[in-house]
Structure formats: C-alpha cells, structure tokens
C-alpha cells in the first residue's frame, strides 16, 4: 500500500491553489472537508494522487456574506457553519435543514457545501437544499472564473463538470428568500445499513396572497443526478397553495421520473409513497413560511 498522496497543500489564495493544480498537471485534486475521498483513501480504494489541495484555508472563502440580493458561501464554509448561520436560517431555511442532516456532527464540522455540490452525488443533501433555492456556483480555473447554475454542473452519479483536478468551486450563492417566500426540506432515511437517503426533497415557493407566483423543487435520488424538478414546480405557478395542487405536483413529479428499487435501501414503491406523502408536506410548509394563510 503506497501513500494516498505525497503532498498536502493548504493554499491561502485561489491563485496559489490554481498554481498548484497546474504544476501537478491533473494529478492533484481539490478537496473541501474531504468527507468521501479521505474515507475511500484510507480504505485503499482510491488511486494514489500526487497531491491534495485543501480549499478550506483560502482567505476570504471561509465565510458567508450578503452581496446584493444574494447570500454567498465560500468553499471553506462547513455544514455546521451553514446550519448555525442566522442569515441562512432566515433566508435559506431549506439549505440549513439539508446541511443539518449530512453525516454526523463531526463530519459536518469538516465537510463543506462546496464539496457536497462538486461531488455530484444523486442525493447529496446540501445539494438538494441549494438546488431548490436556485443556487449557483462559481468555478475558478486558469482561464478565469465563471458563475453557473448549480443544476447545470451534474453529469452523472459522482460526476461533475467541475474538474477538481484543474478547477476549484470557489463560492456558492442563492438569492435570499423575500418576505413572501419560504423554503423547506425533508429527508427519509432508514436505520439500517447504508447511510444514504431513501429520498431527499426541497422546495422554495413565492406567494402573492394565496397564489404561488414562483416555485422551485429538487429531489434525489430519483435518477443519475440531483433533479431540479421543473415540471412539478411549473404546475404550481399561478395556482393556489392548496393540498390538491400539492398532490398534483407530486403526481407530475412522479410522471417525470422512473424510480428505482435499490438493494438494501428502498423499493421504488416505497420511494413513490414517500414522494406522495412528503412533497405536499414540504410544499405546505414552504407556503406557510411564505406567509400563505391556508
């Protein structure tokens, strides 16, 4: 068993981090908390790397800040910080909820939202929370930096368009929920075996009186990548925040996905039942948080 990496870098600037990546020509890799990579490395399941670039000590990227209409989260920000942040709790509640159920407390103390999104797992909880909020990510590479919708970064299970051997997911952001907006998240687990969600769902709703004027829904695992459930969200817009509408949204969601039975985790039927049960519940919660009367 050879070492899993030779060098462990903790660069203080994005430029320095990119410089290291360039020097190692694709044989170095960026991590946040390294939640998944380090466990797999420790078990010898990873091909050795030349170097690890720990992105959690980059100056200015270890905090949450308000910029214009956005809340901006640096790539060094841990789940624990997000869960306890008063601004996230107020303006991005479903993200605080979703980051609060990742792993255990110790893992949340080191794991980052940037790592969760860049890892591109079909049911990354933090990712589901961010997607519903309409989150975006900033990617830095030798060619410069660019913002893009988080939903456009997923290529497949564990595959992101962000090349972590050459690029860094530097920041994440979403538009703060306004007074007439609310969000909510729910996850169903089982107490046995794999610590992976049976289903995670999140939503963001905007209300005008009792009418929904904008909606975002995300869920996973319902396919190879986290799903931004546009058809289900669209059906809600312009209609009332009613149980009937929410059930319709669940139906539409189910019409657009084909759920799988995953061994030792859940049957497709159970997943369907959970979506039918909980999507209306989180929609109602988000509507209530948005100030709807019913």
């Amino acid at each position, binding site marked *: 068993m050879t070492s899993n990496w*030779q060098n*462990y870098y903790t660069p203080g600037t994005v430029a320095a981090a990119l410089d290291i990546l360039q020097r190692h020509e694709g044989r170095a890799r960026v991590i946040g908390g*390294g939640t998944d990579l380090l466990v797999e490395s*420790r078990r010898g399941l990873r091909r050795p790397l030349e170097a690890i670039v720990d992105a959690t000590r980059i100056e200015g990227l270890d905090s949450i800040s308000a910029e214009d209409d956005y809340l901006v989260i640096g790539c060094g920000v841990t789940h*624990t910080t997000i869960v306890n942040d008063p601004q996230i709790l107020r303006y991005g509640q479903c993200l605080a909820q979703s980051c609060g159920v990742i792993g*255990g407390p110790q893992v949340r103390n080191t794991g980052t939202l940037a790592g969760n999104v860049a890892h591109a797992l079909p049911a990354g909880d933090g990712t589901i929370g961010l997607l519903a909020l309409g989150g975006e990510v900033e990617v830095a590479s030798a060619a410069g930096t660019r913002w893009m919708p988080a939903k456009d970064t997923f290529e497949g299970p564990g595959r992101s368009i962000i090349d972590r051997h050459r690029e860094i997911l530097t920041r994440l952001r979403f538009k703060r929920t306004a007074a007439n907006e609310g969000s909510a998240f729910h996850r169903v687990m089982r107490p*046995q*075996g794999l610590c992976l969600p049976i289903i995670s769902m999140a939503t963001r709703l905007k209300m005008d009186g009792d009418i929904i004027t904008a909606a975002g829904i995300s869920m996973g695992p319902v396919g190879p990548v986290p799903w931004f459930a546009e058809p289900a969200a669209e059906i809600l817009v312009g209609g009332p925040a009613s149980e009937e509408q929410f059930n319709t949204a669940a139906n539409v969601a189910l019409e657009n996905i084909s759920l799988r039975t995953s061994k030792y985790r859940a049957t497709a039927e*159970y997943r369907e039942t959970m979506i039918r049960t909980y999507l209306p519940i989180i929609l109602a919660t988000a509507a209530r948080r948005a100030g709807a009367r019913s």
Partner: protein
Amino acid sequence: MSRLQMIVNGTPVDIEVDESRYLSDVLRDDLRLTGTKIGCAEAECGICTVLVEGTPVVSCVYPAFKAQGRHVETIEGLEQDGRLHALQQAFLDHGAVQCGICTPGLIMTAKGLLDRKTAANEAVNEADIRAALKDSYCRCTGYQSVINAILQASGQDVPPYLPETRAPETEVGKPRPNPNALAKIRGTARFTDDYHFPGMLFARTKRAHCPHARIVAIDVAAARELDGVRAVLTHEDVPGRNAHGVVSIDWPVLCGRKVRYAGDAVAIVAADTAEIAATALDLIAVEYEEIPAVTDPIAALQPDAPQVHEERPDGNLLKHIKVGKGDIEAGFAAADVVVDLTYRTPTTEHLFLEPECSIGIPAGYNPSRFGGVCDALASRGETAQHDKTTIYVGSQIPYADRDQAAATLGVKPDDVRVVATLMGGGFGGKEDITGQIHAALLAEATQQPVKMLYSRQESLLVHPKRHATIIRMRTGATSDGKLTAVEATLYGDGGAYASLSEKVLTRATTHASGPYDVPNVRVDCFATYTNNVPAGAFRGFGVTQSCFAAESNMDILAGKLGLDPVEFRRRNALDVGSTTVTGQVMRESVGLLECIDKVDTDMRHGDFRWTWDEGHKRLAWGLAVGYKNTGLGGGAPDKATAEVEAWQDPDKGLVAEVRISSAEMGQGLPGVLSACAAEELGVPADNVTVLLGDTDVCPDGGPTTASRQTFVSGNAARHAARDVARKLADAPGTRVVARHEYWAPATQPLGTGGDMHVAFSFVAQAALCEIDMRTGEVQVRRIVAAHDVGRAINPLTLEGQIEGGIVMCIGYALTEHYIQEDGKPWTNVMARYKTPSITHAPPITSHIVEHELSTGPFGAKGMGELPSIVTAPAITNAIYNATGVRVRSLPVDQDTLLHAINAGATEVELGWGDRESIPTIEFGGEH
C-alpha cells in the same frame, strides 16, 4: 517528510512526518498519545474524536497537515493539575464507562458541546447531547448514563441512575465505579494496540475472499522477496497442530487444502510496517479451484448439498439437538387454541468497538536487544524480559488461547503465556481464536515481537457472528389460559466452522418454550455447517433467537384467548416448584412473577392504554419475558480458581490482591471480585486490587461466557479470601496467600433430567414504541424493565449491564443485520452495519429483583446476557399492538411494514435485507 507544527494539549509540537499521514496516527504512533482510539477508520464510529480549534473532528480521516498550526485537544489534555475534568468525574460517577474504548471519543465530543454552550452562555439539555453525540458510538452503556453524566458535567444536579436494591453488606451491594474506569477516562488505559514493544513488527493476513474452494497452489516467493518483509508463513510452516476451535478442533490455523468461507486465512506476513505487510499480501498468489458454496442452513442438509467438511460422517449436520417432555400429541389435543408460525432472525455482528489485536512475543525476548530498556523487576509489558512465547490479547478465554497456541506451536501449554490486556468490548465475539496464534507463530519465526491488528473491515469479515435462525413454533393453550404444548423446529446457520454452535443452539433449544411451565414439549434443532461466516457466542447465546419466536407466539395466543398478555404470562410463569423443559425442578431463586408485576405496575401507571395516536405517530406498549441460565451447565465441568494474597500496607492497613484468569470486557468483573473479597476480609473494596488474565500468575477462571463469572469467579474469590482471613487470624500482620478452586454445583447433560443448570435469571421488559404511520419508521420511546439477578453485588455496574444489554437488543430488533450474498459479506464496512446510536436509545426504567441463590456469592447469579434477550419481541409485540401487523423477521423493515399497514395486511415476512420470504419447514425430522 515535512515539518508539522501543532499545539497539542497546550504544548507546541514540531515533528517531521509524511504529508500523507492522518491525525489519529500521528497522535498515536508519533506522539504516543494512545488515548485516542481507532474503531473503524471510516468516519463512522466517532471513537477517534479529538478537538481541533475546539471543534470535534474524527481524527482517523483527518489529514495531519490539515491541523498545521492548529490547537488539538485529546483526552490526555483534560486533567489539569491532577484534577479530573468535570466530564471525566461525571463519567466515573455515573458508571458511563464500561469497556472504555469509546470513552475518550464520547468525552471529547461532549467537551466540544460543553465548551460551545459555555461560550454561548447557554444551558445544555438532553436534546443537545443527543444531537452532538449522534455519531459517537458506544456498544456497552446504552447511552443513558452518558447523557446523565454530561448533564452533570454541565453543572446540573443529576445523580447517577440507580435502581432500588437491597441494603448493602459492608462492601457487597454498594454502587462503585469499576476499578479500571479511572484509567479509561484519563486515556491511560492500555488496550492491545496501545502497546509498542521495541523491535516490533506488523502483521497482516491473506484472506480467501471466496466462500468455498480447493487450494491448488500458494506462491509466496515474491512476498518473501519484498524489502521489509520478515516472514511469510503458510500451512507448511505450522510446526504443530494446524487447527483450532473452542469446542471442536475443525478450524485451520492456515488453510492448505481448501477454504470454507471468505474470511479463511491462507498466509500471514510480518514486516517492518503494516503498509509493507499489506503490500506483501498482494504479492501472494493463491490459485483456487472454486467449489459450489452452500449458504443456507436448510439447503445444507439436502443430500446433494456441497460438503463443507467432506470428512465428517454427518455431512453438514453439525448437531441435531433434541429436547422433549410429556406427550406432544396429547398436549395439542388438550389445547383449545393453537398458534403455529415460522420466524426468522438475522446474522448479527458484535461490533465491539475495538477490532481484534494480538501481539506475539518470542521466547527469550529482551527489549534491550532492540534498543529498549529492560527492567529486571518488570513482570510484563514493554520493559519486561519474556522467557516464554507470550501473547498479549484482549480475550474472553485466556487459558484456552494459551492451550490452542501451544498446540499449534508444538509446545506444552506451560511454554506459552497469555497476558490479558483490556478488552474494548467482547459480547461473546472474542471467545474464538482470531490473530492470537498467527501473532505467536510470526513472533517465533522472526524472533521479534509481532502485532496483528485487524482493521474494522477485516474484523467484520473474520470473527464468528450471532446465528441466523429459522424457527417454526407451535404453541397450544386451553381457554383458561394454561399452556399445554410447545413444539418447535429450529435451523441454525453455524457457518464454516463449529465455534460454539453446538452450545449456542443447545441453549436456543432448551429455552425455546420460554420461562413457562409447559407440560408437553418437543424441540428439534439442526445446527448446520455452511460456507457463511462462522457463528458462535453472542450475548444471549441462542436464547435471544428462540425468545423472539416464543414471545411472539405468546402474545398471539393471548389475543386469540381474549386474555391480557401479561395475565396470560403470569398464569404460566415458572415459579419455585415448577419443572423446566429439560426436567429440572426449580427449587429456589425464581423471581419471574415479581419481575412481571414490577413491569406491569409501571407500565399501567396512570391512564393506561395499549395503543393511542399522537398526530401521524401511533404509540403502543409491548411486553416480553425471558430467562437465561447461569454457568456452562449440561454436565460440563464448571470451575474457577482464584488466588488471594493479603499483606499490611503502611498507609492503608490490610490490602489484598485477587488473581484470576477471567476476562474483563467492561462488564465490571474487577469491581465484583474486589467487593466479594473485601467483604470476607473486612476491608474497604478499594484496598483490594484485582489482577486478571496473566496465565503465568493468575489461575484459571475459565471462559468468560454463559453469564458465569460473577457466580464462579465471585465464589472462588470469596472462598479464597475467606481462607486468607482465617490464616490472618492465626498469624496477624503477615503476608498470606490462599488459593481456592471453586466448583459450581454439578449439572446433568441434556436428556438425562435433573439439574441442567445451577440457576436461571429472569427478566420482564415492556417497550413503548412509536410507529410513524407515514413512513413505517419505528422508534422506542421508553423501556420498563425488571431483572431478577439474585443479588446486586455492584448496583452501578449492574445497571450499566442492563441499559447496555437492552439497547443492544433494540439494535437486534430495529437496526442490525450482517448480510451475506452467496457466501460473500455485503456487510464489509462499518458503514453497512448500524448499531443503535444515542438517537435510538430510550430512557430506561429499571427494577432489580433479588431472589437470592443460596449457592451464589452473597446470593448473586449471572446476568450479563439477561437484558439482551427479550427487548426484540417486546418491540415487535408493540408494533402489533399499534398496527395489527405481526413482524416475523428481524430486523424490522419500515418499507415492508408500511406496505403492510397501507395494504391492511396482518403480517410481514421480510426483514430488512431478506431477499426471500420465510421458507416452509417441517416439524421434527431427521437429517
């Protein structure tokens, strides 16, 4: 190598280490801060938790260089100026320390919480603790004492939870922390992996990874050539007997002809580092010719089944165990109501949080030869000269380890010494040989100390588990609620080697009809060989399995009879004068009815209902009762020898040491023995130290199994102390030694009638469960328990056993299943095996019933397994009372349970992880 600078426990550290190292390894290996333990190396168990800048992190997957320039706190830094930290003191006071392997992780996680709350000027509540410790696992305590200890440490007035017990004698009956708890909360307690002998090599084992195959060739040439490799051994290098086994000697030390399960050992390597040893494993080429595997205990008995041990005349039938009484046909003819159902229980894993570790020391080892210090006065440890081949190991049966290692080494038992180190949990899972013999072989081959440490993943693969069973049980009763007959057939999956299968499944058979007076009984049990992981001892020892079937049938019968399930049990409960299934007449110490009354009274307190709704949750109570034998029984010689030495200490007055080779795995044996001896000597228990498990110094206490140590070793220590007291009366002020060989009262083999066991302990438990009617999730909200233990020798550690046992059995009901697919474990990492966390642990109300046993030490009988038997059927009975769905397979699967609830079905046959429904089996039969 690069320069790593950290502040560790307030002291600057500046060392050269590889950038690829993890923090836990740097702390343990480079800084020798071995208080930080490693349980899984998967970020699952949390026992390696340390604080970095005040924040709890799992150090096993924390890159050391991530801590560059940071403050790191470990358990060793908590004590200030000789004063224990409030958390350490509280863990001691509350008995929140058992085996101690997870204690540093629990305390450090809790410190992170307390420090954060203090900084925010907030009080700590129970919900905070449950949230913060969600991934800090403990397998011993059941967490209630941990929660109370943390509340106390936060400044709240929370006394230790102690059930009411009889007034103490002078020492016996007093609640006291386990004597070894102090070292455990300080982080100075040493488990095997915490020893670093000068000149020590590191060993690894080449595993089969296929369930059944003939070995065509083993080529170790390339491995032997690798730089840093000091020895590679195969079956050809075994000087003596190439087999071991606790009951039958059928398990190869190193396989030469064939492999019978995925964890079989084919070769062993010792090298300068564990990494080199691991690399060497990859260079060993083993050519196999695969044989079809048999992985089901019923299929194993079919005539055309692949044979696991071809040489056996009985084929795959390991043992057919029969118990009978009365006339079974007449019994059912007399019944007004009959229930006949088949149940299934899963293979489960002990998941002691300390993976197996053995260190072998060659005969004639002198540490000074490897640059170490040799202390002529040291009798054991890194500075001692070792005259004999010595094995350091945390084992439940030190003398058996010694004898088995000697047989393989080809030497006399006296030429081998086993030194018992602290054990980070056992629960029956450290009775069989794992690395002990391999470490000794490699030590002798290399003439250097050799450490054989298993990873968590290897531990999961290798050691024997709890038997999976299929149990068909037919129970009949008259309309006035008297049991008339019980008929049962059990199939137990013994796996590839005998281990303790025969004994475990005998216990499953003899306890199958429950703690009831049943006139007509017939039970057949087929213990089988398969190519699955071997099955052996696990707390409850077979009784946990058959109790699930028996107590499910009892509730169903009560329902059919229109009787209250508690009253139905009362009418049939064993009492003084009853006769057991095996024909044993109960003469004394049968506290079952009192246990039932205590639990029933508590459960029915106030506005009692069996079930009610709270929003989308439905709550319900369920109850189950059980019993468990004390001691080996069945005619097996059951003895323990203790030596007690007493002398005058200038400060303390009369002091004594009890020496006995019995195992402490966190259950609190040293406290029991010191109390028993102190009582006889008339000194405070603190004046009596206990030395366990050095086979050169401590006489044989026998195996630590069958809930026997309090009884046999307690009696041995008591009698030896009494002899010492007598001698001291004749010669006051002198140093005296006495040895007492205690023989438990004789028992009779199964089938011959008479006393099969010296005693039984009894239990009743009620579980209040909450079923989420939207998801099928089940949560235990509360447990009320009563245990008849004869006499509480140490109420604090006794309560710890009770709470821990109950939570372990909650795991059996709801979370645990070791899954194998065609002989290969799917459960190959800890992330795939969930034991109850603090979030699953309910508040427990505990009653102690003390129906004294005249032959027990101060009336005590065994109880280590008792709490871990009836909780599962209490839970499934509650689920039935809530939903009308009878769960016949464990662990409960929320997916199928919800489906059944929504479909209006009345039963669930599939447990979590089961791929097929429960098969149909016939009663009786010969194979």
